[in-house]
């Protein structure tokens, strides 16, 4: 038996995921396709947001969705009604999408449609404020939703998610008059955790804020396609 050897490798634990995420991004770029990773806790309103967004967005831009769900295809079925390409990704026990799953989803999408005709791919991640934040999928931007019923403190309690987000959508703001909720405190907590994030208040009931959200998407697509 030989003496122990120490091999200093300084390798990211998630480097296999990051490597696949890079490959996904190269593919998105080759397709000239902007990819958004949509994340939130369960029930913050991701699927409803996509339903409303895609109704209008599909007029101007060719869109597709990869729909992550732990056990069902219920959300994918809702979005398929909008007549856009939707690929469900059932993660089983995993509480987030990883780059391999998205790569698999993209292969299925390629069988449905030529991605060259697409402008934007919206990836709805599994509802969870912890894990999706650490697993890149090759997205160009991360969008985190936070509904006001979750409480003002969530950016402080789940800082990685809100630190990583490029855009934070504060959802269900139509409920503000009915709740003892301080939206300024929430915004201050968001600024503390991530001063660089864009923030938009939005309601799927009154549709307030959707114009700003769609402008945000359009701007990103136009800039990406330049």
């Amino acid at each position: 038996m030989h003496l122990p050897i120490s091999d200093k490798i300084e390798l990211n634990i998630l480097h296999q995921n990051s490597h696949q995420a890079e490959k996904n991004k190269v593919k998105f770029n080759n397709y000239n396709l902007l990819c958004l990773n949509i994340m939130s806790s369960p029930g913050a309103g991701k699927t409803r947001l996509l339903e409303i967004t895609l109704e209008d967005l599909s007029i101007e831009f060719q869109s597709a969705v990869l729909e992550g769900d732990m056990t069902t295809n219920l959300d994918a079925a809702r979005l398929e009604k909008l007549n856009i390409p939707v690929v469900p990704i059932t993660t089983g026990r995993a509480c987030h999408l990883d780059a391999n799953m998205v790569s698999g989803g993209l292969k299925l999408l390629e069988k449905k449609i030529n991605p060259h005709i697409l402008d934007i791919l919206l990836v709805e991640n599994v509802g969870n404020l912890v894990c999706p934040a650490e697993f890149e999928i090759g997205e160009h931007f991360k969008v985190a939703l936070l509904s006001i019923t979750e409480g003002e403190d969530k950016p402080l309690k789940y800082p990685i998610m809100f630190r990583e987000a490029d855009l934070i959508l504060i959802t269900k703001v139509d409920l503000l008059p009915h709740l003892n909720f301080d939206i300024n405190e929430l915004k201050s907590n968001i600024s503390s955790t991530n001063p660089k994030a864009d923030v938009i208040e939005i309601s799927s009931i009154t549709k307030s804020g959707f114009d700003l959200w769609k402008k945000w998407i359009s701007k990103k697509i136009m800039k990406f396609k330049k």
Partner: protein
Amino acid sequence: MHEVDMTKCLILSMEEWAEKKNKEKIIVEKINLKIGEFTCVEPISLINTFNAAVLGSWLDSSEITIETIPFEGKCSKCNRSYFPKKENGYKSPCCNFNLEEIISGRELKIASIDFKEK
């Protein structure tokens, strides 16, 4: 639950590393990790998950060690480094500025691997 997936990634990285070393001829004694405080990883859970996952495998006898890397930020007003606290909204204690720059704490690394040749 994500520690299971972190462990999966860790084992895949170890497999990749071992391929270059001739896996049959080595025994891994320690896998030395550096985990930042500002990550979603709970070190104890990662160790327990790893120990369960490698039972009966070529990594069965290997041990995980974790060096915790402190969460450190830099005040964007006065450039002083500080340890951001949740209770203080991660703001700098010197100038009460929002956390803009993170110096350390996001590490999720295999720092080194201690092994023996059979």
